């Protein structure tokens, strides 16, 4: 049965994550479609597992092991520094993307 995720839940989490990103010197993925997909994934995991696990990391079921995967995850700052974005591409280094005339990121660049 598909999980129900409300628009207001997406907006609320987006605001929270955006504030976190701003405080730490990075930004959310400016590609709206990608950003919303990731946020939906976080919310889906919240509803399924009770925690906001990264949608691009496997939830093992071991609470201790999975703690690191709660967004913002344990690896995100290192990944942003090295790759310019975290693994699931929610958080990006500022100016590490090219905005085209449609104002979308290079989330899909090269692919």
């Amino acid at each position: 049965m598909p999980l129900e995720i409300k628009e207001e839940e997406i907006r609320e989490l987006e605001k929270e994550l955006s504030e976190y990103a701003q405080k730490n010197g990075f930004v959310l993925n400016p590609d709206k479609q990608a950003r919303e997909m990731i946020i939906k994934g976080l919310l889906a995991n919240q509803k399924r597992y009770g925690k906001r696990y990264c949608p691009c990391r496997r939830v093992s079921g071991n609470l201790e092991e999975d703690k690191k995967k709660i967004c913002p995850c344990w690896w995100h700052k290192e990944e942003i520094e090295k790759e310019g974005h975290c693994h699931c591409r929610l958080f990006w280094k500022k100016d590490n993307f090219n905005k085209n005339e449609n104002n979308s990121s290079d989330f899909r660049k090269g692919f």
Partner: protein
Amino acid sequence: MAELADARDSKSRPGNRVRVQLPLRALNLKNFMAEIILNEKNFSEEVFQSDKPVLVDFWSEYCPPCQLISPIIEKIAEDFQGKIKVGKLNVDQNPLIASSFMIEAIPTLLFFKNRKVVEKIVGLVSYEVIKEKIEEILKTEEEE
């Protein structure tokens, strides 16, 4: 989703139909049966008993990099059809297999040859990167 076909059972009375379970395939109008949907039931047969190298894409529904790599995997399946087998495994629906291969971040691509994992790619990569890995694997196979 299972594809079921009705086949006439010649031994039974005329008009009787027998339901036959076909292997699961990702429906692809351009190249039907290019990728295999893998699960805990068919994984061993499709991967470990394959006479060709197998590329397995471990993915999840809400993971955008998984969605982005999907058409790349589809193209790989088309371009290397007959030389390798390509399968997709949803990690949420098949947790035991995902955990047995210690899949942590997704997408993860595992390349199998002769029942062993010979290469691994984690994260979103380009068509060229995957193509290069496959060509290396096929080259060593020719040399053996």
